[in-house]
């Protein structure tokens, strides 16, 4: 499957790249928790590094001894884009804390690719083609986040208030977590997504769900409008979320603002905050080309191809045996 995947990208002119798993930077996401570790003698290492490359590493936080295992290769791949790498892809090992279940393993394989110049339409097209090439389940059908909620929940996810969302949760017989706050609108949308929408997506044909609520943009750009929507899409096959794509955010100030907002949410959730300044921001300030970036869970892809029910079945050493 890896060979077929590489052929797919190689034949389309993508360059395969490798980027660090261990980094001083990490993605700031409300619901992603990275593993961290420490390194000794960082001052000596940093000095040696700058001397070797002949560049004054002004933006290297020299005191930083804390390093992060990457939750995705996103930051480094975007730094490559900013440096003019063009279309790139990577098969990367990534790490996420506290994620363990039938479709989750704390260490897993992510396929991530970036195509400069692409917009939402081209990005979804390529994702659908990859899915067809790998799984042979026919061309993907497109459905907006709003259409999916109208069809399976019976409400408009962009305009419905929390009371309406909570009523819909109750109507489908689901007991919401007692700690789910009334003002956490995205939390209620997530609950409906998990209970009502996702289990129905992608059975006849793969589904590309697009135009997410602006509050769930993460690193996607937001398209102004009424309502404004996040230019983000996800691929679903037989109820399994397989890939997530962004029309990438380019504005460093916007990212900086989202990082601090996300950290505020993390602190409210009782989680540690994550560094808001990073070298991706520097790359964005120097100019990131407009692109679409997509990440696909390779273990889940293999699971679906093999007709398995859990990713543990297709991993030689799942977490409990690793």
């Amino acid at each position, binding site marked *: 499957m890896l060979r077929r995947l590489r052929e797919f990208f190689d034949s389309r002119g993508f360059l395969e790249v490798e980027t660090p798993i261990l980094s001083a930077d990490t993605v700031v996401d409300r*619901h*992603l928790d990275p593993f961290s570790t420490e390194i000794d003698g960082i001052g000596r290492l940093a000095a040696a590094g700058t001397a070797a490359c002949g560049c004054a590493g002004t933006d290297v936080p020299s005191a930083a001894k804390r390093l992060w295992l990457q939750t995705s290769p996103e930051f480094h791949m975007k730094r490559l884009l900013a440096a003019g790498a063009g279309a790139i892809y990577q098969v990367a090992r990534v790490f996420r804390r*506290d994620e363990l279940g039938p*479709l989750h393993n704390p260490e897993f394989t992510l396929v991530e690719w970036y195509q400069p110049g692409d917009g939402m339409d081209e990005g979804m097209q390529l994702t659908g083609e990859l899915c067809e090439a790998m799984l042979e389940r026919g061309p993907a059908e497109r459905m907006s986040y709003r259409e999916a909620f109208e069809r399976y929940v019976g409400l408009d996810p962009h305009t419905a208030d929390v009371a309406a969302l909570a009523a819909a949760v109750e109507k489908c017989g689901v007991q919401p977590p007692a700690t*789910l706050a009334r003002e956490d609108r995205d939390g209620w949308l997530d609950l409906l*997504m998990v209970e009502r929408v996702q289990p129905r997506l992608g059975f006849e044909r793969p589904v590309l769900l697009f135009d997410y609520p602006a509050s769930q943009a993460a690193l996607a750009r937001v398209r102004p409008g009424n309502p404004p929507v996040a230019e983000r899409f996800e691929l679903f096959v037989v109820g399994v979320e397989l890939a997530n794509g962004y029309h990438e955010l380019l504005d460093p100030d916007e990212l900086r603002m989202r990082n601090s907002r996300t950290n505020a949410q993390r602190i409210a959730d*009782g*989680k540690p905050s994550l560094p808001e300044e990073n070298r991706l921001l520097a790359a964005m300030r120097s100019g990131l080309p407009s692109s679409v970036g997509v990440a696909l869970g390779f273990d889940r892809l293999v699971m679906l191809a093999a007709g398995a029910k859990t990713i543990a079945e297709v991993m030689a050493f799942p977490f409990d045996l690793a």
Partner: protein
Amino acid sequence: MANYSTSDFRKGLKVQLDGDPYIMFECNFVKPGKGQALYKCKLRNLLRGTVLDRTYKSGDSLEAAEIEEIQAQFLYRQQNQFVFMENETYEQYELSAEQVDDAWKYLREGMSCDIVLYNNHPISMTPPNHVVLRVEYCEPGAKGNTATNVSKPCKVDTGAEFPCPAFVNIGDLVRIDTRTGAYIERVKE
């Protein structure tokens, strides 16, 4: 009282909910895209047997139930009470016919069983997976018939009846699987 947070959630966890002990018999981790992690759990009430569906989000916690499992041997039955004695402390525990449920079929004196205690009171018991019982009555089998696919009801010394192969006779010892009630083999004295 100890608490379990969502990262401790797993099958078999015993928790306290609305004043009753529950066992978590299913726990599924789900996480939508960039959304928050949810744990979809199924819990069985250890006193009533009723089942609850509950969804928890990452960081939630549940109180641990004061549940202990002990080994005790069956002493005797007194009408609707079954009396057991803990192997180490000789402490005696009484279970009702309702709590023992179908397991009465397998209970012979001296048999070692698992008993679940909730706040030090017995709430359920499980017999060993395999037990040996003596056949007290059955129709005589046709001579020479050693086929195992023909079965007949055999009454054993606990008063229960189990289907056994035709060659089993009165006075024989038979091994029974207590999880299915199925005959396994004939046992020599």
